[in-house]
């Protein structure tokens, strides 16, 4: 093979190796997170720079909250199913539907109170500046959907789908 052709191929191969090396090195930490047992908590540790001791406390809080959260999910699903059945039969707002909507509202309120209590507790177990940052972030993602609808750049794909035209 001619020398020029060899250099041509060598340049392309070196360029590809450099690309792959930097890409895999640059994404290695995230891929390691994804392979861990609880990627979302490992991400939390990394994102809010938690020390091991603080992270252990946050994990314990998270585990305790999870059972509460699962129970809440079950109640929400049951309530949604009841409401769905009522709405399927109704052609106007009946007292029964009103009552179920009120119950759903109460459930949402209860759920939000539980969440807020958990978020505050988690934030108290973080370094103060990171705790404030965590609270601001998690509240925006859970309690402030209106903000997401009009916010620029922070809206997720899901909120984009529900954005009012």
């Amino acid at each position, binding site marked *: 093979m*001619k*020398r*020029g*052709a060899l*250099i*041509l191929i*060598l*340049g*392309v191969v*070196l*360029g*590809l*190796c*450099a*690309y*792959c*090396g*930097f*890409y*895999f*090195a*640059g*994404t290695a*930490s*995230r*891929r390691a*997170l*994804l392979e861990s047992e609880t*990627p*979302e*908590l490992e*991400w*939390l540790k990394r*994102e809010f720079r938690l020390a091991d001791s603080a992270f252990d406390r946050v994990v314990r809080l*998270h585990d305790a*909250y*999870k059972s509460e*959260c699962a129970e*809440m*999910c079950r109640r*929400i*699903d049951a309530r949604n199913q009841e409401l769905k059945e009522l709405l399927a039969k109704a052609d106007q707002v009946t007292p029964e539907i009103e009552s179920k909507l009120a119950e759903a509202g109460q459930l*949402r309120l209860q*759920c939000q109170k539980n*969440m807020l209590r*958990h*978020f505050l507790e988690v934030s108290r177990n973080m370094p103060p500046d990171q705790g404030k940052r965590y609270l601001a*972030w*998690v509240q925006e*993602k*859970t309690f402030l959907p209106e903000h997401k609808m009009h916010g620029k750049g922070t809206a*997720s794909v899901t909120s984009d789908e529900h954005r009012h035209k």
Partner: protein
Amino acid sequence: MKPSDPIDKNDSLGRALQQWTVDAALPPRFHDDVWRRIRLTEARPAPSWWRDLLDVVEGALCRPALAVSYVTILLLAGLSIGFAQARQESARMDKALGARYVQSVDPYQAPRHP
């Protein structure tokens, strides 16, 4: 006016050429070989632009300064594109993991399995 014949200008050379006879026999299949060569020449593909380009590039890369520049540019391009894409992908994964955390704590955003 009739153009002058160059042979007429040199009488002795002209006479010698007119008297010259070739006695040697032609090699076997001489005519066939001549026609075969003509056919081969006509069948040869015309030089294409990419072949010319390749020749130019190969010629250029034989010069050390150009070869080093070419390899360096490709190396730097690979590094910078790899770095930029890694940052982009990391940001995407961060966003996905953040959403996953929110789903794990918010019953209204938790994925439902029908």
